[in-house]
């Protein structure tokens, strides 16, 4: 088993980490929703209308280009609302659960790809290039599975896995049958994952070591013209479960974390649950909180009235703006004003102490001035700054040459946090990937 040591990156220690690993049950959700934006690359075409009944695992919509790609309902119930936003963009498909145990059973003897597509698990996977839901019919060169989440306050995936751990082997077996190459599983030091069909690699180092893109770049980098799949270990186990029992389980363990949460802990819930069922009465001050479904770097901002978003395992609640009109913040010598750079005094007190951070950007957007900031946060053989500039200037040849096929927006999330010039790097990368994808098709 190989070990890869990564030096670049940074672990941000925030207040509100989970100290007690017991899992409590959340209240049963009053509504459950699927948010199409979670599955980038799919243009939804509805299969169910408002008022129709769906079983758990039954398709709600499919992709416009590949009808076989289905997105399914996580619960049995009635389609309450198809909520649309600007230009009829589907914001969410809301289902009122009926409490029945009506769940679709799949015939697992057929073609594995067809089973995955029909089961709704397909859309939980991503492909490189472009970081989108994989295109059916393309055999990936390799499959990269990450067995840990290194983001700030991230859940321990061993706990999220729980009893699904037994299906990892089956999942690996299924996926290794679908690739010409191998299934690579990236684990952190000391993690125990047994998968005879897979190549297990240990990654030692700070965030973003848990990103599949970083793991791929440090084992078998993605080249132009190749396609690889990237998934997390929990989805892998769900695939294993599907091919063992014929059913997809839509229950999930969510880490509820962050400074504004009274008691951070693991909660057992259902994919797409309404947040009230998980968070109601659990926040210290709901009015000045920012609720993030996911981690602070890549998650989506959500309201209390909304739902848990993919990958359905993490909620972080941070203060929205806890220091309005901070006087001359740029001149601060207060070590509590967190910065990873030594221009502030935080480093004198150590950067490993948990800190409070709110959602302010703390500066205006500028041209890129300081050098090497992105590279220090990106453990890949990529010149991040030059790639970002190529994307901004729309130079497709340069983007390809500089390795855009190897990256996803999440790989630049830490650089976005650390960026002195406050550029929206994840948005820039996403737009670059979308542009390239449109150009290539």
């Amino acid at each position, binding site marked *: 088993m190989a070990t890869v040591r990564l030096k670049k990156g940074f672990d*941000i220690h925030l207040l509100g980490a989970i100290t007690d690993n017991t899992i409590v049950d959340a209240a049963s959700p009053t509504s459950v929703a699927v948010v199409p934006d979670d599955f980038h690359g799919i243009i939804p075409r509805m299969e169910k209308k408002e008022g129709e009944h769906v079983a758990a695992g039954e398709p709600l919509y499919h992709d416009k280009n590949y009808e076989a790609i289905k997105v399914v309902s996580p619960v049995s119930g009635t389609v309450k609302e198809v909520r649309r936003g600007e230009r009829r963009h589907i914001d969410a498909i809301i289902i009122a659960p009926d409490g029945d145990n009506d769940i679709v059973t799949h015939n697992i003897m057929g073609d594995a790809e067809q089973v995955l597509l029909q089961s709704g698990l397909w859309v939980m996977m991503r492909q490189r290039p472009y970081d989108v839901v994989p295109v059916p019919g393309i055999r990936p060169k390799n499959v990269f599975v990450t067995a840990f989440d290194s983001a700030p306050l991230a859940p321990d995936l061993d706990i999220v896995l729980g009893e699904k751990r037994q299906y990892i082997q089956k999942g690996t077996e299924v996926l290794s049958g679908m690739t010409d190459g191998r299934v690579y599983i990236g684990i952190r030091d000391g993690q125990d994952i047994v998968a005879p069909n897979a190549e297990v690699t240990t990654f030692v180092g700070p965030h973003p070591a848990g990103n599949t893109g970083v793991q791929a770049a440090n084992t078998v*980098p993605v*080249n*132009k*013209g190749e396609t690889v799949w990237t998934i997390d270990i929990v989805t892998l186990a769900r695939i294993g479960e599907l091919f063992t029992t014929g059913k997809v389980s839509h229950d999930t363990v969510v880490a509820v974390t962050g400074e504004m949460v009274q008691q951070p802990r693991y909660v057992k819930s259902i994919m797409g649950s309404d947040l009230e069922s998980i968070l109601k009465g659990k926040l210290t001050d709901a009015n000045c909180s*920012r609720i993030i479904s996911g981690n*602070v*770097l890549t*998650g989506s901002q959500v309201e209390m009235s909304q739902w848990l978003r993919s990958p359905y395992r993490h909620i*972080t609640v*941070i203060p929205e*703006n806890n*220091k*309005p*009109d*901070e006087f*001359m*913040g*740029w*001149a*601060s010598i207060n070590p509590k*004003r*967190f910065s*990873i*750079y*030594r*221009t*502030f005094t935080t480093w004198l007190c150590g950067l490993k102490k948990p800190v409070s*951070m*709110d*959602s*302010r*950007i*703390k*500066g*205006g*957007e*500028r*041209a890129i*001035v*300081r*050098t*090497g900031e992105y590279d220090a946060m990106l453990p890949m*053989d*990529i010149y991040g*700054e030059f790639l970002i500039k190529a994307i901004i200037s729309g130079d497709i040849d340069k983007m390809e*040459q*500089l*390795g855009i096929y190897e990256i996803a*927006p999440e790989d630049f999330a830490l650089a*976005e*946090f*650390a*960026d*002195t*010039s*406050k550029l*929206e790097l*994840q*948005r820039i990368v996403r737009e670059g990937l979308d542009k390239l994808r449109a150009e290539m098709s």
Partner: protein
Amino acid sequence: MDKIQPSFRPGGKLAKLESVYDGMETFLFTPNATSRSGAHIHDGNDLKRTMITVVVALLPALLFGMYNIGYQHYLAIGQADASWFTMFLYGLLALLPVIVVSYAVGLGIEFIGAQIHHKEIQEGFLVTGILIPLIVPINTPLWMTAIATAFAVIFAKEVFGGTGMNIFNVALITRAFLFFAYPSRMSGDEAFVKMDSAFGMGDGSVIDTFTGATPLGQVATNVGDSLQMTNILGEPISCMDAFIGLIPGSPGETSMIAILLGAALLLITGIASWRIMCSVFVGGLAMSALVHVLPSATYPASMLDPWTQLCLGGFAFGAVFMATDPVTGARTNVGQYIYGFLIGVFAILIRVYNSGYPEGMMLAILLMNAFAPLIDHCVVSSNIKRRARRVATKE
């Protein structure tokens, strides 16, 4: 601030000052804007902090420069026994108008530019504005400084898109403009020691034996096989004098000690690239050692030993504060070594073998500013080739 805000928004009475208002507001208060896309938390560091840290790093050189202006002045008028405070005060009064002119002209143009483009005022000039008084000879008339600053800010920065977009170091362009437009005022006896009074302070007539040339100026005009630099009274000066900095020169450049203090802050905070800084010194040492092997009376600067070379003139100041400007320097790690090393080499090369320019640092940095993108291009190309080879070997 929030109360008066509406009159600065489009349609308000003072809408023409919107950028100025925004500039002041973000200066006084950390912006309240919260993230809309991407990462929800951001590091506390921003460009304001970065630039201010550089200004703080320049303070030792600035304060020492003020003292030295006074010291040289009182030496020149034969009152070497004046107290250090008198000397400092005189220097302060002499340098303050230059600082005010530099900031007023530079920031004025930036404010206007920002308002025209409806952009936020950017911080780049904070550093440039303090660099200019430190590298312009003290006797330069204020109107020259004003013209040069305006030229540099407009043609070296704003036309390229403002802070972060310029190709050449703005402060150095200011000095280069002065150097080529008014060469007679930029060198020789009269340029570097202020002889008249400053705001009525320090009156006195200059002593007869006065020679105000900088050590490097003396070296350039040296005749014969022996070389001895003198201070303005004609007394010999050593490498140590140059290290401490009580010699004639541009206000910021004379004291190696003050510059090293600034360098320490820049390196500890990680703002300046240690790769560039170190390789400039290595390049300078290597080149001056090389020319020192073959000292010749034709090129008197070749008679200086390497350490003295580095202590004299603007070499150290340029290496610490100018070469390390991230915007105009090389941006890749490997590129920074090459870039810095070549600056050191060219600075000494110009000093020694081109007697028209006794100070080579300015031209060396500007030259390498032009080549920095090329160096980076070569470094990045190697990454591109490596990636292309990965595909090729597979097929």
